[in-house]
């Protein structure tokens, strides 16, 4: 079974970075990174997000919830100055939004 630690190690090695290099980028001690890669230490939420940003993959990919590295991100705004995440966005709504956005992308590509 794959683990988050292994994923991070692999992503790091693909880039030919040392643990020290990655630790520096993530602003953590390299002993912490070494323990994370060895699955001896859980990854804190903020750090997880940082790794996702550094490697340009999704958090889901690092957590092995998906094998796809593609990075769809959809971010909502109820707007009018209110924060939209106080209400849950149902999965189905999210999918419909993605479908429509994909449809627009397709149409756009056909037009060019």
């Amino acid at each position, binding site marked *: 079974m794959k683990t988050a630690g292994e994923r991070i190690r692999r992503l790091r090695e693909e880039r030919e970075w040392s643990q020290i290099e990655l630790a520096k980028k993530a602003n953590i001690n390299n002993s912490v990174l070494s323990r994370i890669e060895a699955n001896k230490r859980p990854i804190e939420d903020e750090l997880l997000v940082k790794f996702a940003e550094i490697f340009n993959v999704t958090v889901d990919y690092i957590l092995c919830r998906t094998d796809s590295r593609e990075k769809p991100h959809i*971010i909502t*705004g109820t707007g009018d*100055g209110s*924060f*939209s995440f106080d209400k849950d*966005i149902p999965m189905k709504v*999210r999918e419909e939004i993605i479908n*429509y956005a994909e449809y627009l992308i397709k149409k756009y590509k056909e037009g060019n």
Partner: protein
Amino acid sequence: MTAQLYSLAKSEGIIVGFYEFPSPVLLGAYYHRSNNPPVILLHKKIEHRRRLLRCIFAEELGHHFTASFDLMAFARTDKKYIARKYEKLAIFWAVQYLMPLDKLIEAVNSGLFLTHELAEYFNVTERFVGTGIKLYFEKRRDYMIKLLKKLPEELNC
């Protein structure tokens, strides 16, 4: 005024579309999949509500400039606070874009200090003015306190 937002979106290669959202709480969304143009969706029902449209549009642009991962997925977990943090970043981007601090100071100095006056001046919703001022207080506290001191005495209670 919204034209400026459209042209910024265009220069960023963002596709902008109006859409009947399947949820009443959503007025806008930003979507980006690797190697594809980003998409901003705006709710059809706000197409002609000029000020609200500007605020939502700017906030979605804010997401484009400040976030880089799936916030909606986070919003469905116990890690909501991360989503909220990035949501706030996007809103602050929008606030700085539509209601820059120097312009706000200028407006207050020229005698505009009621929410509806500022909303009209900046062509945004009153709620946006409120959120904007709150965020400026959080992030530029010293400035804002100086600004408050300039308000007429009858308001300084």
